[in-house]
């Protein structure tokens, strides 16, 4: 009974995670602005990956669950940082281009 419940929970998490990843990927391809693409990428690299990793509870293996827990921690730390690095570069580049355009005008 418990194993069946875990399997159902894991399947639900997996479906939800993969659905979010698919929608995020669609958004990345569909959107043209770099900031909009970053939000879509954040959806894939954050909640979608975390849900897929949480689905490891269905495996019933401590080795897999603990490895997944470590990866979740790693993702929680690195995902906002990578998004920030790209956003900062895009923002500064955009500001420099607009300053150059103002100087030329």
């Amino acid at each position: 009974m418990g194993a069946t419940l875990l399997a159902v929970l894991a399947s639900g998490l997996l479906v939800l995670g993969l659905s979010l990843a698919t929608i995020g990927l669609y958004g990345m391809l569909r959107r043209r602005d770099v900031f909009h693409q970053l939000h879509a990428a954040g959806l894939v690299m954050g909640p979608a990956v975390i849900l897929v990793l949480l689905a490891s509870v269905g495996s019933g293996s401590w080795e897999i669950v603990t490895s997944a827990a470590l990866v979740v921690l790693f993702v929680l730390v690195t995902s906002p940082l990578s998004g920030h690095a790209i956003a900062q570069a895009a923002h500064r580049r955009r500001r420099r281009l607009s300053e150059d355009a103002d100087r030329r005008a």
Partner: protein
Amino acid sequence: MIGFVLRATGLTAVYLLVLTSLAPGDILVGAALGIALAAALRGGRHARPRRAPSLGALRAAGTMGAQTAAEMVRGSWRVVRLCLGAPCAPGLVEIPRGDRTRTEVAVWGVLTGEAPDEVVVDVDEERDVLVVHLVDASDPDAVRERHRRNHERTRRQVGR
């Protein structure tokens, strides 16, 4: 003392997670290594004294974690709508830094960036603001007010 125990426990937990083992021998070795490393780190902290985290700080960390999880859920929904082409008003919002220290700004930035609908763009040192790109920037004042409220709640729980 609480800080020392927390550091030792955390290091032991990382050791066991890497080994993916809960065998008594591994727990003993992990605990020994964790305590030794935590003691070594404590010995090297002569440069400036640090306060041990109080129970209020731990409660504040729990509240911040719960708030961040809730924001991740709400933010995911907003980004799903953005990806699927629903009308929204993305844009940059400047949030005043307030009385946060540099470390607090770094933690605040990471926690804010956990929600996929908020990307931390920059910290403007001159104007003392955190620049954030939001999926829904239609009401910047509400965003500032939310961040201010969360910060004040954390401050109250920590007791500062």
